[in-house]
């Protein structure tokens, strides 16, 4: 099987098994533990406030490490309707910089899963998958999103890549956890950890538990 097809199955599996909490409570648990994990992952001073329900959306504001100086606010209405607002407040009296990643389900999106289901080759793809395939997919979802933006100024950290093509709110938040981590060693270890984690989850076709997903390497 073509390696790209294998990766296509892995892509969908990773999103399904790691980033698709189903019930409202599962979504809340996911977001709560996500917030808790950031203190240690980024080595910030305090835990972010837990998410709250506001205008039918789960939302919270999270400050990144002071090394980066970025905050973001998420508001998740459903798995395919969410907005993430990124903010930079300069220390002097310059204007704040604010931009938003918006996902709107009213517009057409390419139905990946539909085609993969019809192709019906998941078992073969899983048998054939290698660490290299998993690494490629995790890179393009989290570590080095294929379409991405660099913030050139005033936050000059070229290693931060804000993904542009991520359609799942939980994946989007998780990729921010990685991208806004100031510790290079932790970033490298996280990639290795995620490959191992998802290899097990995909082989067993079982969702990753939230606390395993949020562990600190």
């Amino acid at each position: 099987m073509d390696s790209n097809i294998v990766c296509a199955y892995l892509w969908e599996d990773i999103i399904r098994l790691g980033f698709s909490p189903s019930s409202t409570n599962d979504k809340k648990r996911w977001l709560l533990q996500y917030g808790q994990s950031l203190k240690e992952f980024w080595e910030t001073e305090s835990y972010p406030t837990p998410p709250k329900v506001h205008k039918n959306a789960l939302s919270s504001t999270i400050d990144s490490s002071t090394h980066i100086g970025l905050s973001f606010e998420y508001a998740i209405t459903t798995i395919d309707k969410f907005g993430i607002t990124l903010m930079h407040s300069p220390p002097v009296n310059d204007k704040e910089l604010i931009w938003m990643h918006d996902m709107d389900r009213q517009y057409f999106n390419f139905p990946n899963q539909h085609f993969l289901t019809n192709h019906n080759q998941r078992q073969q793809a899983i048998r054939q998958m290698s660490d290299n395939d998993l690494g490629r997919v995790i890179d393009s979802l989290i570590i080095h999103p294929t379409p991405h933006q660099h913030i050139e100024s005033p936050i000059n950290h070229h290693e931060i890549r804000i993904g542009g093509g991520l359609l799942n709110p939980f994946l989007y938040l998780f990729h921010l956890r990685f991208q806004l981590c100031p510790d290079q060693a932790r970033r490298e270890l996280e990639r290795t950890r995620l490959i191992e984690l998802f290899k097990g989850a995909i082989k067993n076709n079982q969702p990753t538990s939230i606390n395993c997903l949020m562990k600190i390497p």
Partner: protein
Amino acid sequence: MDRNKFGINVDEGVALSSEQEFQLLYIEPDFDAKNILQNWLSNGDKPALLGGQIGCGKTTLIDYSFYQSQIKPDLTFYFDKESLNLSPIDSWSIIFSELFRYIAKHQLIHLIEVPADIKIILGNESQEWLDSISEIRLEFFSSQSIIKNKTFNQQLEEIQRFLPKLFEKLVHCIEHHKGSEIFIFASGVDKFEPDTTAYFSLSEILQSLSKYKTLFEVNAVHLFWNDPWMQNTQRIFIPASKDGWVEQMLEKRLGAYADNYKQEIPLIAKFSGGIPRQALRLLDSFLAEKKNTKANAFLQAIEKVNCDFFAFAQRPENALLRSIQRNSLLETSYISLPGDNETARRAIFGNWVILHSQQHESKWNTVLNPIIKDSLSQILSESPEALLLKKYAEQKGISETGLDINISRLNWQEELITHIEAPLELNITEILGILSSALLSKQRADRVIIAYENKQTADIVRAYLEAKSNSYEYQVWLHSPISYKDNNSILHQLIEHISKQNIDIFSFEFNDEFPIDQLQELNLRRDYFADKQMIWWIQKDQLSNYLSKWTQLRQLFQVFILEEDLLRSLSIEEIDNDLAFMRELADEENTSEYSYVKNLESVLEYLKVVKHG
């Protein structure tokens, strides 16, 4: 113990023992002791004492040597964890139960003559013997196992005066069947300080063991002792390691993160005094302080480790410390002088001074432990420690996480030593900050003592910590008061609880005055606790009584004094917010959310009462 394959491994107090741990974390020592030990394992024909100071890596060295040489002891006696009381019978009980285990495992039970009353306890078949021995050794705690333990000890007591002969006879039979001499490992003798009652109670047994090829794990002070059982022994000394070696060890422990701490590693190595466990404790404390973005995290780590190891400890005489500071020499013949409690023996046994190498005959190159007050207050501006600190301060000074202490001014040390050798008072969020890595993870096995003044406050803090420990995954707590009971020692009570299954965090509240021998017993059997996640609650006015008896045990614990005013550190509004969110998730008992909500609600209720009256 689970080790982190990719990241940081700081769990001090737990020796490396498995192949996986060796491959991940072991580095060859920078002294001869390992080669001498390996040579002894292959060719030695008389008993050996392997000795070093607390935390110098004795157990790891021994385990690695067994692993590498594939020469394993036929019999191992753990004197630091397999007994309940400090009596000779309990120690003999360890000896005979392990002997009988060996006999059963090797299907020798029908070939060896055992006193009839003991045979009744053990049973008729090998498997019955093995099951009985598990009960006698209290590997599974139950009322039946306690009865079996007591009955076995009573039987031994009845024939106590014949036990050395019986031991010899059984060993002789085993050697006959084995076709070669037996190799014995006497583990944990290092916890028994010479001239103490507990040590005396062990001496007859040590005498019996010394007739065979036995490896005795001892403290450095034992190597300078000359009891009858030591007369014909080879002595192998494990010295403090060099800074470079400690740096390598720290790098290995930090894994991929080592590069992040390039500046701190040499400093930590220097202040470790060459003692690996002290280095790991400093590293652990530094990482915890740094996580709380404390500006002077390194100095606070020194303060914290000093408090853990030395607060309320019995100090050696100042004259000895001054002399070592001046001459960097110790006359080791002082160690075994009668009535020397306050001087050389205490200094070495308690790690106040660190032995490096033999200079000439009984004179040994020795330094003060770099983290004790006497060292810190006397650091000269040109000493290696001060130069390293200065360089570090200069490097850090230009960043926003610079040191608070101006190291270039005179008497800067005073700022640091104000709290040295006295416990630190921290508020609940500071304690949680330091503990969080351990408390939030099921994988860790850290141990903590929290001293408190007011029991109600302590209960609330416990509820808060229990709630927070359930932030990620469900962790089951067991909390129990430990009280003085005539017929049930503290150790016995603790073991009874610890043997319970499916508990993640053990919380024990010591709310009595205990006899000294019971406290000392905990000190000797500290390895019972080495792989458990524990919080011990002790009343503040009792803390000095406990810590002064726990030279060994305190090596496994961090010590905190609780600041009583919870309102200063906990916000009602924040807890309200947390609860508002979590209540909806707490729909099922025995879940992390349920535990979180239940405990945090009691904290909130208390805070509201305190605030509003």
